[in-house]
Protein backbone atom coordinates (compact mmCIF):
# COMPACT_ATOMS: atom_id res chain seq x y z
CA UNK A 1 0.00 0.00 0.00
CA UNK A 2 2.35 2.63 -1.26
CA UNK A 3 1.68 6.31 -1.53
CA UNK A 4 -0.36 5.64 -4.67
CA UNK A 5 -2.74 3.43 -2.69
CA UNK A 6 -3.86 6.41 -0.63
CA UNK A 7 -5.45 8.01 -3.66
CA UNK A 8 -8.40 9.34 -1.68
CA UNK A 9 -6.03 11.46 0.40
CA UNK A 10 -4.31 12.69 -2.75
CA UNK A 11 -7.64 13.83 -4.16
CA UNK A 12 -8.47 15.49 -0.85
CA UNK A 13 -5.23 17.44 -0.80
CA UNK A 14 -5.59 18.40 -4.46
CA UNK A 15 -9.09 19.77 -3.93
CA UNK A 16 -8.01 21.56 -0.74
CA UNK A 17 -5.11 23.30 -2.39
CA UNK A 18 -7.02 24.06 -5.59
CA UNK A 19 -9.85 25.63 -3.61
CA UNK A 20 -7.48 27.76 -1.54
CA UNK A 21 -5.60 28.86 -4.66
CA UNK A 22 -8.83 30.01 -6.30
CA UNK A 23 -9.78 32.02 -3.20
CA UNK A 24 -6.43 33.76 -3.16
CA UNK A 25 -5.71 34.16 -6.85
CA UNK A 26 -9.03 35.20 -8.36
CA UNK A 27 -10.35 38.69 -7.85
CA UNK A 28 -13.91 37.96 -8.99
CA UNK A 29 -16.02 37.67 -5.85
CA UNK A 30 -18.17 34.80 -7.16
CA UNK A 31 -15.10 32.83 -8.20
CA UNK A 32 -13.70 33.23 -4.72
CA UNK A 33 -16.87 31.72 -3.29
CA UNK A 34 -16.63 28.81 -5.70
CA UNK A 35 -13.06 28.22 -4.57
CA UNK A 36 -14.29 28.26 -0.99
CA UNK A 37 -16.89 25.62 -1.87
CA UNK A 38 -14.28 23.39 -3.49
CA UNK A 39 -12.11 23.77 -0.40
CA UNK A 40 -14.99 22.72 1.84
CA UNK A 41 -15.77 19.75 -0.43
CA UNK A 42 -12.27 18.38 0.10
CA UNK A 43 -13.01 18.25 3.83
CA UNK A 44 -16.09 16.12 3.21
CA UNK A 45 -13.87 13.64 1.39
CA UNK A 46 -11.38 13.71 4.26
CA UNK A 47 -14.04 12.52 6.67
CA UNK A 48 -16.02 10.08 4.58
CA UNK A 49 -13.38 8.11 2.68
CA UNK A 50 -11.68 6.70 5.81
CA UNK A 51 -15.09 5.85 7.21
CA UNK A 52 -15.51 3.01 4.74
CA UNK A 53 -13.79 -0.02 6.14
CA UNK A 54 -12.43 -2.53 3.65
CA UNK A 55 -14.90 -5.44 3.74
CA UNK A 56 -17.37 -3.44 5.83
CA UNK A 57 -21.11 -3.63 5.27
CA UNK A 58 -23.65 -0.85 5.74
CA UNK A 59 -24.36 -0.40 9.44
CA UNK A 60 -27.47 -2.60 9.66
CA UNK A 61 -27.61 -5.35 12.25
CA UNK A 62 -27.81 -8.71 10.45
CA UNK A 63 -26.79 -12.29 11.08
CA UNK A 64 -23.33 -13.26 10.00
CA UNK A 65 -21.98 -9.77 9.42
CA UNK A 66 -19.60 -8.40 11.98
CA UNK A 67 -17.69 -5.59 10.27
CA UNK A 68 -19.67 -2.38 9.76
CA UNK A 69 -18.63 0.77 7.98
CA UNK A 70 -18.68 3.78 10.21
CA UNK A 71 -21.89 5.83 9.83
CA UNK A 72 -20.76 8.71 12.05
CA UNK A 73 -18.67 10.57 9.42
CA UNK A 74 -21.70 10.64 7.15
CA UNK A 75 -23.78 12.34 9.84
CA UNK A 76 -21.01 14.85 10.52
CA UNK A 77 -20.61 15.64 6.85
CA UNK A 78 -24.35 16.12 6.35
CA UNK A 79 -24.08 18.86 8.93
CA UNK A 80 -20.98 20.25 7.28
CA UNK A 81 -22.69 20.25 3.86
CA UNK A 82 -25.61 22.24 5.27
CA UNK A 83 -23.16 24.70 6.80
CA UNK A 84 -21.39 24.98 3.44
CA UNK A 85 -24.68 25.60 1.63
CA UNK A 86 -25.66 28.29 4.12
CA UNK A 87 -22.26 29.97 3.81
CA UNK A 88 -22.43 29.90 0.01
CA UNK A 89 -25.97 31.31 0.01
CA UNK A 90 -24.99 34.07 2.42
CA UNK A 91 -21.85 34.88 0.43
CA UNK A 92 -23.81 35.10 -2.81
CA UNK A 93 -26.43 37.32 -1.18
CA UNK A 94 -23.67 39.69 -0.06
CA UNK A 95 -22.21 39.62 -3.60
CA UNK A 96 -25.61 40.57 -5.03
CA UNK A 97 -25.79 43.53 -2.65
CA UNK A 98 -22.20 44.51 -3.51
CA UNK A 99 -23.07 44.44 -7.19
CA UNK A 100 -26.03 46.73 -6.54
CA UNK A 101 -23.94 49.10 -4.43
CA UNK A 102 -20.77 49.23 -6.52
CA UNK A 103 -21.82 48.09 -10.00
CA UNK A 104 -19.04 45.52 -10.20
CA UNK A 105 -17.97 42.25 -8.60
CA UNK A 106 -14.26 42.48 -9.30
CA UNK A 107 -12.41 43.03 -6.07
CA UNK A 108 -9.82 45.44 -7.47
CA UNK A 109 -12.51 47.63 -9.05
CA UNK A 110 -14.40 47.74 -5.77
CA UNK A 111 -11.31 48.70 -3.80
CA UNK A 112 -10.59 51.41 -6.40
CA UNK A 113 -14.09 52.78 -5.99
CA UNK A 114 -13.58 53.16 -2.27
CA UNK A 115 -10.26 54.92 -2.51
Amino acid sequence: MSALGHYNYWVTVLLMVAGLYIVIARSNLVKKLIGLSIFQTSVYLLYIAPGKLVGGTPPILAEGFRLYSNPLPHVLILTAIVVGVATLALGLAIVVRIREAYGSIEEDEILEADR
Partner: protein
Amino acid sequence: MTLAQLPALVVVVPLVAAPLALLLRRGLAAWAIATAACLFSFAAALLLAGQVAESGAISYALGSWAPPWGIEYRVDALSAFVLVLVSGIAAVVAPFAWRSVAAELPRDQLYLFYTMYCLCVAGLLGMTITGDAFNLFVFMEIASLSSYVLIALGRDRRALLASYQYLVLGTIGATFYVIGVGLLYLMTGTLNIADLAARLPGIAATRPVLAALAFITVGMSLKLALFPLHLWLPNAYAYAPSAVTAFLAATATKVSVYVLLRFYFTVFGVHTVVEVLPMPQILLALSIAAILTASLVAVWQAGLKRLLAYSSVAQIGYITLGIGMASRDGLTGAVVHLFNHGITKGALFLLVGGIALRAGSANFDRLRGLARAMPLTSLGIVIAGLSLIGVPGTAGFVSKWYLVLGAVEAGRWWLAALVVGSSLIAVAYVWRFVEAAYLAEPTAATPGRGEAPFAMLAPAWLLVAACVWFGFDTSFSAESARRAAVLLLGGGAR
Protein backbone atom coordinates in the same frame (compact mmCIF):
# COMPACT_ATOMS: atom_id res chain seq x y z
CA MET B 1 -37.06 22.95 35.01
CA THR B 2 -34.57 22.57 37.76
CA LEU B 3 -31.05 23.87 38.17
CA ALA B 4 -29.79 20.66 36.58
CA GLN B 5 -31.13 21.84 33.21
CA LEU B 6 -29.29 25.17 33.33
CA PRO B 7 -26.40 24.11 31.08
CA ALA B 8 -28.87 23.40 28.30
CA LEU B 9 -31.12 26.36 29.03
CA VAL B 10 -28.31 28.90 28.85
CA VAL B 11 -28.02 28.08 25.13
CA VAL B 12 -31.59 27.02 24.38
CA VAL B 13 -33.29 30.22 25.54
CA PRO B 14 -31.50 32.56 23.08
CA LEU B 15 -31.79 29.86 20.42
CA VAL B 16 -35.59 29.75 20.85
CA ALA B 17 -35.78 33.52 21.12
CA ALA B 18 -34.41 33.83 17.58
CA PRO B 19 -37.32 32.21 15.67
CA LEU B 20 -39.76 33.85 18.06
CA ALA B 21 -38.31 37.25 17.16
CA LEU B 22 -38.58 36.26 13.49
CA LEU B 23 -42.22 35.24 13.80
CA LEU B 24 -43.26 38.34 15.72
CA ARG B 25 -42.12 40.64 12.90
CA ARG B 26 -42.34 43.75 15.05
CA GLY B 27 -39.08 45.48 15.99
CA LEU B 28 -40.03 46.34 19.57
CA ALA B 29 -41.36 42.85 20.37
CA ALA B 30 -38.26 41.26 18.83
CA TRP B 31 -36.01 43.55 20.89
CA ALA B 32 -37.93 42.72 24.07
CA ILE B 33 -37.58 38.98 23.48
CA ALA B 34 -33.88 39.33 22.66
CA THR B 35 -33.19 41.37 25.80
CA ALA B 36 -35.17 38.97 27.99
CA ALA B 37 -33.31 35.97 26.56
CA CYS B 38 -29.91 37.62 27.10
CA LEU B 39 -30.78 38.55 30.68
CA PHE B 40 -31.91 34.99 31.38
CA SER B 41 -28.69 33.59 29.93
CA PHE B 42 -26.65 35.98 32.05
CA ALA B 43 -28.47 34.91 35.21
CA ALA B 44 -28.04 31.23 34.25
CA ALA B 45 -24.32 31.78 33.55
CA LEU B 46 -23.83 33.41 36.97
CA LEU B 47 -25.61 30.52 38.69
CA LEU B 48 -23.50 28.02 36.75
CA ALA B 49 -20.29 29.86 37.66
CA GLY B 50 -21.26 29.81 41.31
CA GLN B 51 -22.06 26.11 41.15
CA VAL B 52 -18.76 25.29 39.46
CA ALA B 53 -16.80 27.34 42.00
CA GLU B 54 -18.40 25.34 44.81
CA SER B 55 -18.56 21.80 43.57
CA GLY B 56 -16.36 21.46 40.50
CA ALA B 57 -17.09 20.80 36.86
CA ILE B 58 -20.62 20.05 35.68
CA SER B 59 -21.28 17.52 32.96
CA TYR B 60 -24.59 17.57 31.11
CA ALA B 61 -25.50 14.81 28.68
CA LEU B 62 -27.51 16.14 25.74
CA GLY B 63 -30.36 13.80 24.82
CA SER B 64 -29.47 11.68 27.84
CA TRP B 65 -26.89 9.81 25.79
CA ALA B 66 -23.91 9.23 28.06
CA PRO B 67 -20.62 10.70 26.88
CA PRO B 68 -18.46 9.87 24.98
CA TRP B 69 -21.15 8.51 22.64
CA GLY B 70 -23.44 11.45 23.14
CA ILE B 71 -22.77 15.16 23.00
CA GLU B 72 -21.74 16.49 26.38
CA TYR B 73 -22.02 20.03 27.71
CA ARG B 74 -19.22 20.64 30.15
CA VAL B 75 -19.02 23.62 32.49
CA ASP B 76 -15.70 23.93 34.26
CA ALA B 77 -13.75 26.87 35.70
CA LEU B 78 -12.67 28.21 32.30
CA SER B 79 -15.93 27.80 30.39
CA ALA B 80 -18.00 29.20 33.27
CA PHE B 81 -15.84 32.33 33.25
CA VAL B 82 -16.21 32.84 29.52
CA LEU B 83 -19.97 32.13 29.73
CA VAL B 84 -20.35 34.94 32.26
CA LEU B 85 -18.41 37.31 30.02
CA VAL B 86 -20.35 36.53 26.83
CA SER B 87 -23.81 36.51 28.39
CA GLY B 88 -22.99 39.61 30.41
CA ILE B 89 -21.90 41.58 27.36
CA ALA B 90 -24.97 40.32 25.47
CA ALA B 91 -27.25 41.44 28.31
CA VAL B 92 -25.62 44.89 28.41
CA VAL B 93 -25.57 45.48 24.65
CA ALA B 94 -29.21 44.40 24.10
CA PRO B 95 -30.82 47.39 25.89
CA PHE B 96 -28.27 49.68 24.22
CA ALA B 97 -29.10 48.28 20.82
CA TRP B 98 -32.68 49.56 20.64
CA ARG B 99 -31.90 53.24 20.07
CA SER B 100 -28.62 52.64 18.29
CA VAL B 101 -29.91 50.11 15.76
CA ALA B 102 -33.19 51.97 15.18
CA ALA B 103 -31.11 54.91 13.98
CA GLU B 104 -28.94 52.84 11.65
CA LEU B 105 -31.35 50.30 10.14
CA PRO B 106 -34.66 50.70 8.28
CA ARG B 107 -37.69 50.00 10.46
CA ASP B 108 -38.89 46.90 8.66
CA GLN B 109 -35.54 45.15 9.16
CA LEU B 110 -35.28 45.63 12.92
CA TYR B 111 -36.81 42.28 13.83
CA LEU B 112 -34.31 40.54 11.53
CA PHE B 113 -31.47 42.25 13.39
CA TYR B 114 -32.66 40.88 16.73
CA THR B 115 -33.16 37.41 15.24
CA MET B 116 -29.53 37.40 14.14
CA TYR B 117 -28.43 38.85 17.48
CA CYS B 118 -30.10 36.02 19.40
CA LEU B 119 -28.56 33.45 17.06
CA CYS B 120 -25.11 34.98 17.52
CA VAL B 121 -25.46 34.94 21.32
CA ALA B 122 -26.71 31.33 21.24
CA GLY B 123 -23.85 30.30 18.96
CA LEU B 124 -21.17 31.92 21.12
CA LEU B 125 -22.61 30.49 24.33
CA GLY B 126 -22.88 27.05 22.71
CA MET B 127 -19.25 27.23 21.57
CA THR B 128 -18.22 27.91 25.14
CA ILE B 129 -20.26 25.29 26.90
CA THR B 130 -20.01 22.29 24.60
CA GLY B 131 -17.65 19.43 25.31
CA ASP B 132 -17.82 17.91 21.83
CA ALA B 133 -15.40 19.01 19.14
CA PHE B 134 -17.79 18.80 16.20
CA ASN B 135 -20.67 20.37 18.13
CA LEU B 136 -18.24 23.23 18.72
CA PHE B 137 -17.87 23.62 14.95
CA VAL B 138 -21.64 23.72 14.50
CA PHE B 139 -22.04 26.46 17.10
CA MET B 140 -19.00 28.26 15.69
CA GLU B 141 -20.68 28.43 12.31
CA ILE B 142 -24.00 29.53 13.83
CA ALA B 143 -22.20 32.40 15.55
CA SER B 144 -20.06 33.22 12.51
CA LEU B 145 -22.86 33.21 9.94
CA SER B 146 -25.06 35.41 12.08
CA SER B 147 -22.15 37.80 12.68
CA TYR B 148 -21.53 38.06 8.93
CA VAL B 149 -25.17 39.12 8.55
CA LEU B 150 -24.97 41.55 11.45
CA ILE B 151 -21.86 43.22 10.02
CA ALA B 152 -23.38 43.45 6.54
CA LEU B 153 -26.30 45.45 7.99
CA GLY B 154 -24.05 48.48 8.45
CA ARG B 155 -25.12 51.71 6.82
CA ASP B 156 -21.92 52.30 4.87
CA ARG B 157 -21.67 50.27 1.68
CA ARG B 158 -18.16 49.25 2.68
CA ALA B 159 -19.78 47.11 5.36
CA LEU B 160 -20.78 44.71 2.57
CA LEU B 161 -17.21 44.17 1.42
CA ALA B 162 -16.02 43.94 5.02
CA SER B 163 -18.63 41.26 5.72
CA TYR B 164 -17.65 39.39 2.53
CA GLN B 165 -13.96 39.40 3.46
CA TYR B 166 -14.80 38.24 6.98
CA LEU B 167 -16.99 35.51 5.48
CA VAL B 168 -14.24 34.15 3.24
CA LEU B 169 -11.53 34.29 5.91
CA GLY B 170 -13.81 33.05 8.69
CA THR B 171 -15.01 30.11 6.61
CA ILE B 172 -11.43 29.16 5.77
CA GLY B 173 -10.68 29.32 9.50
CA ALA B 174 -13.65 27.17 10.42
CA THR B 175 -12.80 24.65 7.69
CA PHE B 176 -9.21 24.42 8.93
CA TYR B 177 -10.64 23.71 12.36
CA VAL B 178 -12.81 20.93 10.90
CA ILE B 179 -9.79 19.44 9.13
CA GLY B 180 -7.94 19.41 12.45
CA VAL B 181 -10.86 17.76 14.23
CA GLY B 182 -11.16 15.26 11.37
CA LEU B 183 -7.53 14.24 11.74
CA LEU B 184 -8.01 13.85 15.49
CA TYR B 185 -11.13 11.76 14.89
CA LEU B 186 -9.28 9.53 12.45
CA MET B 187 -6.53 8.95 14.99
CA THR B 188 -8.64 8.44 18.12
CA GLY B 189 -12.17 7.53 17.04
CA THR B 190 -13.83 10.01 19.35
CA LEU B 191 -15.04 13.59 19.20
CA ASN B 192 -15.64 14.21 22.90
CA ILE B 193 -13.05 16.66 24.22
CA ALA B 194 -12.49 14.86 27.52
CA ASP B 195 -12.20 11.54 25.73
CA LEU B 196 -9.76 13.01 23.19
CA ALA B 197 -7.65 14.25 26.10
CA ALA B 198 -7.62 10.74 27.54
CA ARG B 199 -6.71 9.01 24.28
CA LEU B 200 -4.13 11.40 22.85
CA PRO B 201 -1.14 11.07 25.21
CA GLY B 202 -0.04 7.75 23.67
CA ILE B 203 -0.08 9.01 20.09
CA ALA B 204 0.65 12.67 20.66
CA ALA B 205 3.87 12.75 18.68
CA THR B 206 2.52 11.15 15.51
CA ARG B 207 2.33 13.27 12.40
CA PRO B 208 -1.46 13.37 11.95
CA VAL B 209 -1.93 14.61 15.52
CA LEU B 210 0.71 17.29 15.09
CA ALA B 211 -0.87 18.25 11.77
CA ALA B 212 -4.21 18.47 13.55
CA LEU B 213 -2.65 20.80 16.12
CA ALA B 214 -1.29 22.98 13.33
CA PHE B 215 -4.60 23.10 11.47
CA ILE B 216 -6.56 23.96 14.60
CA THR B 217 -4.05 26.66 15.49
CA VAL B 218 -4.27 28.32 12.10
CA GLY B 219 -8.04 27.96 11.96
CA MET B 220 -8.62 29.54 15.34
CA SER B 221 -5.96 32.18 14.72
CA LEU B 222 -8.02 33.35 11.75
CA LYS B 223 -11.03 33.61 14.00
CA LEU B 224 -9.30 35.38 16.85
CA ALA B 225 -7.48 37.76 14.53
CA LEU B 226 -3.94 36.88 15.52
CA PHE B 227 -1.40 38.84 13.50
CA PRO B 228 -0.99 38.38 10.49
CA LEU B 229 -4.44 36.81 10.08
CA HIS B 230 -6.22 39.88 11.41
CA LEU B 231 -6.95 41.62 8.12
CA TRP B 232 -10.71 41.20 8.35
CA LEU B 233 -11.03 42.84 11.75
CA PRO B 234 -10.46 46.57 11.18
CA ASN B 235 -12.94 46.78 8.31
CA ALA B 236 -15.53 44.60 10.02
CA TYR B 237 -15.44 46.61 13.25
CA ALA B 238 -15.31 50.00 11.53
CA TYR B 239 -18.30 49.60 9.21
CA ALA B 240 -20.68 47.39 11.19
CA PRO B 241 -23.55 48.93 13.18
CA SER B 242 -22.27 50.28 16.51
CA ALA B 243 -24.11 47.76 18.67
CA VAL B 244 -22.72 44.93 16.54
CA THR B 245 -19.17 46.21 16.85
CA ALA B 246 -19.53 46.52 20.60
CA PHE B 247 -20.87 43.00 20.94
CA LEU B 248 -18.45 41.28 18.54
CA ALA B 249 -15.38 43.15 19.79
CA ALA B 250 -16.08 42.03 23.33
CA THR B 251 -17.06 38.43 22.65
CA ALA B 252 -16.36 36.82 19.26
CA THR B 253 -12.57 36.84 19.35
CA LYS B 254 -12.59 35.96 23.06
CA VAL B 255 -14.57 32.78 22.49
CA SER B 256 -12.11 31.82 19.74
CA VAL B 257 -9.29 32.31 22.25
CA TYR B 258 -11.23 30.04 24.61
CA VAL B 259 -11.39 27.34 21.91
CA LEU B 260 -7.64 27.65 21.36
CA LEU B 261 -7.00 27.33 25.10
CA ARG B 262 -9.32 24.35 25.32
CA PHE B 263 -7.57 22.51 22.52
CA TYR B 264 -4.03 23.44 23.49
CA PHE B 265 -4.22 22.57 27.16
CA THR B 266 -7.14 20.20 27.67
CA VAL B 267 -7.02 18.15 24.47
CA PHE B 268 -3.38 18.17 23.44
CA GLY B 269 -1.90 18.83 26.85
CA VAL B 270 0.82 21.27 27.75
CA HIS B 271 3.61 18.76 27.01
CA THR B 272 2.73 18.30 23.33
CA VAL B 273 2.18 21.98 22.73
CA VAL B 274 5.32 23.20 24.47
CA GLU B 275 7.84 20.47 23.87
CA VAL B 276 6.98 18.61 20.70
CA LEU B 277 6.06 21.64 18.61
CA PRO B 278 7.56 25.12 19.16
CA MET B 279 4.16 26.67 19.79
CA PRO B 280 5.26 29.03 22.58
CA GLN B 281 8.00 30.56 20.44
CA ILE B 282 5.66 31.00 17.47
CA LEU B 283 2.93 32.50 19.63
CA LEU B 284 5.46 34.77 21.33
CA ALA B 285 6.81 36.06 18.04
CA LEU B 286 3.37 36.67 16.52
CA SER B 287 2.04 38.25 19.70
CA ILE B 288 4.93 40.70 19.88
CA ALA B 289 4.43 41.53 16.22
CA ALA B 290 0.71 42.05 16.86
CA ILE B 291 1.23 44.27 19.88
CA LEU B 292 3.83 46.50 18.28
CA THR B 293 2.52 46.85 14.74
CA ALA B 294 -1.18 47.09 15.57
CA SER B 295 -0.62 49.64 18.33
CA LEU B 296 1.53 51.73 15.99
CA VAL B 297 -0.99 51.53 13.15
CA ALA B 298 -3.76 52.52 15.56
CA VAL B 299 -2.05 55.82 16.27
CA TRP B 300 -2.40 56.94 12.64
CA GLN B 301 -6.05 56.12 12.04
CA ALA B 302 -8.52 58.74 10.92
CA GLY B 303 -11.57 57.34 12.65
CA LEU B 304 -12.12 56.33 16.25
CA LYS B 305 -13.72 52.99 15.37
CA ARG B 306 -10.80 51.92 13.19
CA LEU B 307 -8.36 53.05 15.86
CA LEU B 308 -10.11 50.93 18.47
CA ALA B 309 -10.23 48.00 16.02
CA TYR B 310 -6.45 48.05 15.59
CA SER B 311 -6.15 48.45 19.34
CA SER B 312 -8.19 45.24 19.64
CA VAL B 313 -5.68 43.40 17.44
CA ALA B 314 -2.91 44.59 19.74
CA GLN B 315 -4.79 43.59 22.90
CA ILE B 316 -5.44 40.14 21.45
CA GLY B 317 -1.66 40.01 21.05
CA TYR B 318 -1.37 40.41 24.84
CA ILE B 319 -3.77 37.52 25.36
CA THR B 320 -1.84 35.21 23.04
CA LEU B 321 1.39 36.40 24.70
CA GLY B 322 0.04 35.00 27.94
CA ILE B 323 -0.85 31.75 26.19
CA GLY B 324 2.63 31.55 24.71
CA MET B 325 4.18 31.76 28.15
CA ALA B 326 2.30 28.54 29.05
CA SER B 327 2.96 29.12 32.74
CA ARG B 328 0.41 29.54 35.51
CA ASP B 329 0.81 33.31 35.76
CA GLY B 330 1.00 33.70 32.01
CA LEU B 331 -2.24 31.80 31.51
CA THR B 332 -3.89 33.68 34.37
CA GLY B 333 -2.89 36.90 32.64
CA ALA B 334 -4.26 35.65 29.33
CA VAL B 335 -7.62 34.56 30.76
CA VAL B 336 -8.10 37.62 32.93
CA HIS B 337 -7.17 39.89 30.00
CA LEU B 338 -9.76 38.04 27.94
CA PHE B 339 -12.33 39.22 30.48
CA ASN B 340 -10.92 42.68 31.11
CA HIS B 341 -10.42 43.52 27.47
CA GLY B 342 -13.95 42.30 26.77
CA ILE B 343 -15.50 44.76 29.18
CA THR B 344 -13.08 47.56 28.25
CA LYS B 345 -13.66 47.31 24.49
CA GLY B 346 -17.37 46.77 25.10
CA ALA B 347 -17.48 50.03 27.07
CA LEU B 348 -15.46 51.89 24.43
CA PHE B 349 -17.52 50.79 21.47
CA LEU B 350 -20.80 51.45 23.30
CA LEU B 351 -19.65 55.00 24.01
CA VAL B 352 -18.49 55.42 20.41
CA GLY B 353 -21.94 54.19 19.38
CA GLY B 354 -23.40 57.08 21.31
CA ILE B 355 -21.07 59.47 19.47
CA ALA B 356 -22.03 57.90 16.14
CA LEU B 357 -25.68 58.46 16.96
CA ARG B 358 -25.19 62.13 17.81
CA ALA B 359 -22.51 63.02 15.29
CA GLY B 360 -23.31 60.69 12.39
CA SER B 361 -19.89 59.08 12.41
CA ALA B 362 -16.86 58.70 14.68
CA ASN B 363 -14.19 60.30 12.50
CA PHE B 364 -11.77 62.55 14.30
CA ASP B 365 -12.89 65.63 12.42
CA ARG B 366 -16.25 65.32 14.15
CA LEU B 367 -14.78 64.81 17.60
CA ARG B 368 -13.13 68.19 18.04
CA GLY B 369 -14.23 69.75 21.28
CA LEU B 370 -16.49 66.80 22.04
CA ALA B 371 -15.85 67.14 25.77
CA ARG B 372 -18.01 70.23 25.88
CA ALA B 373 -20.86 68.68 23.90
CA MET B 374 -20.83 65.17 25.45
CA PRO B 375 -18.90 65.36 28.72
CA LEU B 376 -20.02 62.03 30.19
CA THR B 377 -19.23 60.13 27.00
CA SER B 378 -15.78 61.69 26.74
CA LEU B 379 -15.01 60.97 30.38
CA GLY B 380 -16.10 57.36 29.90
CA ILE B 381 -13.84 56.97 26.88
CA VAL B 382 -10.92 58.41 28.84
CA ILE B 383 -11.46 56.02 31.77
CA ALA B 384 -11.81 53.01 29.49
CA GLY B 385 -8.77 54.23 27.57
CA LEU B 386 -6.83 54.21 30.83
CA SER B 387 -7.88 50.57 31.21
CA LEU B 388 -6.54 49.89 27.70
CA ILE B 389 -3.23 51.42 28.69
CA GLY B 390 -3.17 49.47 31.93
CA VAL B 391 -3.06 52.26 34.47
CA PRO B 392 -3.20 50.97 38.07
CA GLY B 393 -6.76 51.19 39.36
CA THR B 394 -8.29 49.89 36.17
CA ALA B 395 -8.95 46.38 34.95
CA GLY B 396 -6.24 46.53 32.29
CA PHE B 397 -3.58 46.87 34.96
CA VAL B 398 -4.53 43.54 36.53
CA SER B 399 -3.97 41.67 33.26
CA LYS B 400 -0.67 43.43 32.51
CA TRP B 401 0.44 42.65 36.08
CA TYR B 402 -0.01 38.93 35.59
CA LEU B 403 1.65 39.03 32.17
CA VAL B 404 4.68 40.84 33.59
CA LEU B 405 4.74 38.37 36.48
CA GLY B 406 4.73 35.46 34.05
CA ALA B 407 7.52 37.00 32.00
CA VAL B 408 9.67 37.70 35.05
CA GLU B 409 9.14 34.16 36.37
CA ALA B 410 10.40 32.75 33.08
CA GLY B 411 13.46 34.96 33.35
CA ARG B 412 12.45 36.99 30.30
CA TRP B 413 13.04 40.52 31.54
CA TRP B 414 12.96 41.90 28.01
CA LEU B 415 9.41 40.58 27.62
CA ALA B 416 8.30 42.27 30.81
CA ALA B 417 9.84 45.49 29.59
CA LEU B 418 8.07 45.07 26.27
CA VAL B 419 4.68 44.65 27.94
CA VAL B 420 5.20 47.84 29.89
CA GLY B 421 6.76 49.71 26.99
CA SER B 422 4.04 48.84 24.50
CA SER B 423 1.53 50.36 26.87
CA LEU B 424 3.17 53.67 26.07
CA ILE B 425 2.05 53.30 22.46
CA ALA B 426 -1.46 52.83 23.81
CA VAL B 427 -1.00 56.17 25.57
CA ALA B 428 -0.33 57.69 22.16
CA TYR B 429 -3.59 56.61 20.62
CA VAL B 430 -5.68 57.34 23.69
CA TRP B 431 -4.06 60.76 23.78
CA ARG B 432 -5.32 61.36 20.23
CA PHE B 433 -8.85 61.20 21.53
CA VAL B 434 -8.09 63.29 24.60
CA GLU B 435 -6.43 65.93 22.45
CA ALA B 436 -9.31 66.07 19.99
CA ALA B 437 -12.10 66.03 22.56
CA TYR B 438 -10.64 68.14 25.36
CA LEU B 439 -8.02 70.40 23.85
CA ALA B 440 -9.36 71.22 20.37
CA GLU B 441 -11.95 73.82 19.53
CA PRO B 442 -15.37 72.61 18.38
CA THR B 443 -15.91 72.81 14.64
CA ALA B 444 -19.05 72.86 12.56
CA ALA B 445 -19.01 69.07 12.37
CA THR B 446 -19.05 68.60 16.14
CA PRO B 447 -22.48 67.70 17.49
CA GLY B 448 -24.34 70.18 19.61
CA ARG B 449 -24.58 69.94 23.36
CA GLY B 450 -26.40 66.80 24.45
CA GLU B 451 -25.47 63.31 25.45
CA ALA B 452 -26.58 60.09 23.82
CA PRO B 453 -29.95 58.84 25.10
CA PHE B 454 -29.99 57.38 28.61
CA ALA B 455 -30.77 53.89 27.29
CA MET B 456 -27.43 54.02 25.45
CA LEU B 457 -25.35 55.87 28.01
CA ALA B 458 -26.35 53.72 30.98
CA PRO B 459 -25.14 50.34 29.64
CA ALA B 460 -21.93 51.98 28.43
CA TRP B 461 -21.24 53.53 31.83
CA LEU B 462 -22.10 50.22 33.51
CA LEU B 463 -19.19 48.69 31.62
CA VAL B 464 -16.94 51.69 32.35
CA ALA B 465 -17.73 51.27 36.05
CA ALA B 466 -16.93 47.56 35.66
CA CYS B 467 -13.52 48.50 34.22
CA VAL B 468 -12.74 50.42 37.39
CA TRP B 469 -14.39 47.91 39.73
CA PHE B 470 -12.43 44.96 38.37
CA GLY B 471 -9.29 46.99 38.68
CA PHE B 472 -9.76 47.14 42.44
CA ASP B 473 -11.77 44.04 43.31
CA THR B 474 -10.15 41.15 41.50
CA SER B 475 -11.78 38.48 43.61
CA PHE B 476 -14.04 37.39 40.77
CA SER B 477 -11.98 38.06 37.65
CA ALA B 478 -8.44 37.18 38.69
CA GLU B 479 -9.50 34.39 41.01
CA SER B 480 -11.59 32.72 38.30
CA ALA B 481 -8.75 33.19 35.83
CA ARG B 482 -6.29 31.65 38.24
CA ARG B 483 -8.53 28.67 38.81
CA ALA B 484 -8.96 28.28 35.07
CA ALA B 485 -5.18 28.43 34.52
CA VAL B 486 -4.58 25.80 37.19
CA LEU B 487 -7.24 23.61 35.59
CA LEU B 488 -5.69 23.99 32.14
CA LEU B 489 -2.16 23.28 33.26
CA GLY B 490 -3.25 20.38 35.44
CA GLY B 491 -3.49 18.46 32.19
CA GLY B 492 -6.55 16.69 30.84
CA ALA B 493 -10.15 17.09 31.90
CA ARG B 494 -11.42 16.56 35.42
